[in-house]
């Protein structure tokens, strides 16, 4: 039996490839930025931030941000791959089921009604996470009420919620004043700033178990993507697996959006890029998406910081500008080659 061997080898190849991208990005990311700092000076006295500006820049302005980009990028790409599998729709993204709309609504309400509140580090993330999870639950309830959890019903429920909550979002935005509106618009573009080690620790603890759980779903997702009957025939409770997978992916999305806003494109582009390179086996796609998404977002953030430094570009704009052409390149080369 040769297939398991090639599957394993393909997984190894993808993991090495995307892992190399991530490792390279993590290494280069903190070395460059808005200014040129003397790296020797950073290490001469790394903990005296007040007296050593190079260390402050390296450990306070750069490193947490690079780590945040990796956490957010990995989570969004892994969640995207999960949605695409369970909804059996290649265009599904972490935002298809209205998760972002829910997060946006809660965030905007906080920005509108609690400006400058005391616990600012956690108020917006907390509200966004609550909005994201509430929306996911709502989609599930709606879909279960209308008979099981078939992908089409889930998709329609999600799209409808997206529009409905989106209208409420616009209404809140419309009645906000100038500065609040500007903050809302910027939040929608995604933003990897404001990372602290405390926030990173919370984020890591909230994401790691979910990564592990999702990475173990490769075989299930493979069978599910063949169709519900096929999966059921192999002893998989399709409804339960769908609900579980969507909840886990929505949790990851909610956590990522909560701290970074709806960074676009990572969740849809990275899983497809992995598929184009490494095939459709979810045991390959899921780890590839996690590592590749992390590396990709770190690279995008580096460019956002240095392209026209010290002026910064919005990260969501860069992911699309960079990712779009790269993805088209892959699509045209690999896609045509395969047909």
């Amino acid at each position, binding site marked *: 039996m040769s297939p398991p061997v090639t599957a394993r080898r393909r997984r190894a190849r993808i993991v090495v490839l995307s892992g190399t991208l991530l490792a390279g990005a993590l290494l280069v990311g903190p070395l460059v930025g808005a200014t040129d700092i003397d790296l020797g000076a950073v290490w001469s006295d790394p903990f005296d*931030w*007040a007296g050593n500006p190079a260390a402050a820049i390296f450990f306070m*302005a750069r490193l947490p941000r690079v780590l945040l980009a990796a956490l957010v990028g990995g989570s969004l790409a892994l969640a995207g791959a999960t949605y695409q599998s369970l909804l059996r729709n290649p265009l599904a993204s972490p935002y298809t089921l209205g998760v972002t709309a829910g997060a946006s609504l809660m965030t905007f309400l906080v920005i509108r009604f609690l*400006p*400058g509140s005391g616990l600012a580090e956690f108020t*917006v993330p907390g509200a966004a996470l609550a909005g994201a999870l509430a929306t996911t639950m709502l989609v599930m309830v709606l879909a279960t009420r209308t008979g099981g959890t078939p992908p089409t019903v889930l998709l329609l429920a999600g799209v409808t919620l997206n529009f409905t909550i989106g209208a409420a979002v616009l209404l809140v935005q419309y009645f906000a004043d*100038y500065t609040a509106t500007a903050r809302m618009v*910027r939040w929608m573009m995604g933003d990897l700033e*404001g990372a602290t080690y405390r926030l990173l620790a919370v984020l890591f603890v909230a994401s790691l178990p979910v990564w592990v759980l999702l990475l173990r779903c490769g075989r299930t997702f493979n069978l599910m993507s063949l169709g519900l009957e096929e999966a059921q025939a192999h002893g998989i409770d399709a409804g339960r697996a769908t609900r579980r997978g969507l909840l886990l992916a929505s949790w990851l999305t909610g956590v990522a959006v909560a701290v970074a806003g709806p960074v676009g494109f990572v969740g849809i582009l990275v899983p497809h890029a992995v598929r184009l390179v490494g095939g459709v086996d979810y045991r390959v796609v899921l780890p590839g998406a996690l590592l590749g998404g992390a590396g990709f977002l770190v690279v995008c953030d580096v460019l956002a910081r240095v392209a026209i430094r010290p002026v910064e570009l919005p990260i969501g704009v860069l992911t699309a500008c960079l990712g779009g052409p790269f993805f088209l390149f892959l699509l045209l080369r690999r896609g045509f080659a395969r047909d």
Partner: protein
Amino acid sequence: MTSSELSWRVALAGLFALLLAPASGLRAQVPQRVASLVPAATEVLFAIGAGGRVVGVGDYDDYPEAVEALPRLGGLVDPNLEGILAVRPDFVVIDPAQRSLAAQLEGVGIRVYPFATGSIQEMLQHARSLGRELDVDAGAAQVVSRVADGLASVAASVAGRPSPQVLVVFGRRPGSFAELWVSGGVGFLHDVIELAGGRNVFADIARPSFKSGLEGVLSRAPDVVIEALVEDARAATVRAEWRALPGFAGVKVVAIDSRWALRPSPRVVRLATEVADALHPGRSR
């Protein structure tokens, strides 16, 4: 003089009369009912002595006090056309970005004056031309010289003193250093800082405002941070936040009121005075 020569002269004179008539007619029609949708322009109108003719103002106008009693006609992105027409203005001051509003007003024969908010010089230029349009040239000239003299005396009072490095912050995410919008080396606030004897740390960036990362701010190591705030109540918190940044323990933090200080108006003299007081506490008056 031959008759053909005479008829030529008559014809020329007639032509001149035709050309001059509408012009003199316009000159006679000095606007009597003025609406202003730009808060800075409203301040200029009142300062030059045309305040009595202002019949409506924008949603964000709050100065001088007389505007409180006037009808509100909308804001930059949502001007209220019906409201504007209802106050029957013959002259409307708008933002240059309000192009469709300009077309609509001109379509019904109302004169439109685009007021671009920018540098101090641009504001003074507007004061002069509004003075001309509204036939209050003397008032305008007075405002221009008062502002110019006021600024000149502020500049003189700090001349020769060492210039502190100043970071100007328009806004950031509350409680964090994310979404940090700062002043570059052009624009109203940059002008005020340099005039009041400071050096803008981002003077080399040719933008009125831009988003800087925390790194950009840390690396420029300012002596003074000037942050625009809506609520005075937050000034103490904001000061503590900045001083907690590594290397910023000795930084002087000055809060300015974003409700008026970001607005290029004749009150710029008061702003320049406040900033100069903060940057140079011992300056000669």
